[in-house]
């Protein structure tokens, strides 16, 4: 087990190295650089920036240096000093900007995953056990519904309806009085009260896939002889199903944690933008638009690391759940 984890961690290193390069390349892809974006932004306000000012801005941030040099400066800072560089746009160190947001993003993703499971689990079991029944169709229809509607649209419509009929505007992750408050139990409660709706919208997008996986796995497992053994032992039907095939079908379920995280994070980018959530999403979008290189690169990198770790955790969890993996 220990060597398994060790091997997995070692395998992470090249992945992360590649991720850092790609993170950096992504931001270099669009034509122009932060200076262009900044000037274009000012121009939209009516301000005019001269060519010289543009050049001095480039010089300030070393944007005229070769890409490789910029990359190694950035990577060097991260590896040696934990310095992620500075955000050009905010004129703040990247690390000051991203951690709270990453923390909230992880919260949102976690709650979404839990909600996804909560919805997908009973539906998946039901629709496998009662395959092709009316209930199977109805529940999977509900489950698939979430994946069919673009999340941002659902969010917009829900926000409008909430305004229209309840006179409330769902926005952000905290009530006004908690925005600036220190972390406390009350603040966490407030957070959860704001979190559930976006988490639900986000989670709905993943339920269909999970229902499908659970259903397919369970259908396979239900046909396995050990289920008959369990019945032959005298176990009541639901107990026989829950203890054996469901428990087996759970394994791939856990392994989904690895891939559901990146999709949730991507999904949360747009949703957060619409629902005004202070997660990494809007900051990332904004930094990509303004080509705020180190900010965008660092966020992509950190999110990549998070997903790689998420995959690792799910694999370890899987090993804990499944002795066949553990003992190999």
């Amino acid at each position, binding site marked *: 087990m220990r060597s398994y984890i060790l091997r997995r961690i070692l395998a992470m290193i090249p992945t992360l190295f590649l991720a850092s390069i790609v993170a950096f390349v992504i931001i270099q892809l669009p034509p122009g650089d932060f200076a262009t974006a900044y000037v274009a932004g000012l121009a939209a306000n009516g301000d005019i920036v001269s060519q010289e000012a543009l050049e001095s801005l480039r010089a300030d941030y070393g944007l005229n240096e070769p890409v490789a040099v910029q990359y190694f400066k950035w990577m060097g800072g991260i590896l040696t000093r934990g310095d992620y560089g500075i955000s050009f746009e905010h004129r703040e160190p990247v690390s000051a900007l991203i951690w709270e947001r990453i923390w909230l993003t992880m919260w949102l993703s976690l709650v979404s995953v839990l909600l996804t499971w909560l919805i997908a689990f009973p539906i998946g079991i039901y629709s496998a056990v009662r395959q092709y029944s009316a209930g199977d169709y109805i529940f999977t229809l509900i489950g698939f519904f979430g994946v069919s509607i673009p999340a941002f649209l659902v969010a917009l419509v829900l926000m409008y309806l909430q305004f229209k009929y309840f006179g409330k505007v769902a926005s952000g992750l905290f009530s006004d009085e908690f925005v600036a408050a220190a972390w406390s139990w009350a603040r966490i409660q407030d957070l959860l009260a704001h979190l559930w709706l976006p988490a639900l919208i986000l989670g709905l997008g993943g339920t269909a896939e999970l229902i499908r996986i659970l259903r397919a796995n369970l259908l396979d497992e239900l046909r*396995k*002889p*050990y289920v*008959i*053994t*369990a*019945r*032959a*032992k*005298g*176990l*009541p*039907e639901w107990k026989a199903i829950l*203890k*054996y095939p469901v*428990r*087996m079908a759970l*394994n791939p379920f856990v392994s989904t944690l690895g891939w559901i995280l990146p999709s949730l994070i991507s999904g949360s980018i747009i949703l957060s933008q619409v629902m005004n959530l202070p997660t990494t999403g809007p900051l990332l979008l904004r930094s990509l638009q303004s080509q705020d290189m180190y900010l965008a690169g660092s966020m992509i990198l950190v999110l990549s690391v998070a997903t790689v770790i998420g995959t690792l955790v799910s694999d370890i969890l899987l090993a804990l*759940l*499944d*002795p*066949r993996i553990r*003992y190999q």
Partner: protein
Amino acid sequence: MNTSPLLEISGLKTHFFLDEGTVKAVEGADLMVQHGTTVGIVGESGCGKSVTAYSILQLVESPGKIVAGKILWQRPEATGGDLLDLAALKPNSREIHAIRGGEIAMIFQEPLTSLSPIHTIGDQIVEAIRLHRPVSQEEARRQAVQMLQRVGIPRPEERLDNYPFQLSGGMRQRAMIAMALSCHPSLLIADEPTTALDVTTQAQILELMSELQNDFGMSILLITHNLGVVAEMCDQVVVMYLGQVVEQADTVTLFNDPKHPYTQALMRSIPKIGQRRRGRLDPIKGMVPDPYNRPHGCCFHPRCDKFVPGLCDQQEPPLRKLKSGGMVRCVLYGE
């Protein structure tokens, strides 16, 4: 000893209702299991012998259903000693849960797949014990160790915490038997228990089963396509063909004097020691018919070398009692 049979199946019909049509997997099974005896069911693949066994425990899954017949079960004294028609029970009723594992236990062909791969052996045996007996976890565990020891598993304490994939095939089947017998059932249904094992292990397992039968005084319903096993283990043999019992007899009679043409053909199709090595076996001619389209009349008639036109293909012969005590379903043995 009680003279009434432990289990008596009469006129059992189990059908599968599929979109493609109805499969009459069991279409008239009659058999009897006496206390302390071993009854074998033999037949080709698809003859309905497994479904018959599954029917006893109401384990036939949808779209399969018992549509007719009786399965009379003599309950042991401890649970009332009354006669119960298992076929009339609902598959999810409390009685059948009590009977499954408690009074009638079952073991299967593939011990690896028949045991949950992610639960320890101990977990699965303890669960079985505690399902039927009001004992504590510790007591159940102690009994499980005892059981494992009884079925000949060395270092049972350790083995209890092993997973099935950590055991060898023979050990797994022993564990399976231990689990089945942990509640001292009166009947053990063994569904091809040795098919997946190598020959030496087969012999050991069969021997173990005989031993345990003597110890526990239980009956065994042995389902197999292996006539050798039947010869070795059984007191009575039931031959099934296409969902019907075509012949029942005590083992010696059956092997010496098979009555039904199918049984006779079966006997000819297996090699015997002492036969000339180059001599060809005599396979049964033709194919097992399509289960959706059972032949009219005697279902064996298209393959039968004693086929009587106008008779065999017209009406289904009933199962008749023979003077020897056996029974046969063939017009040749009329009146």
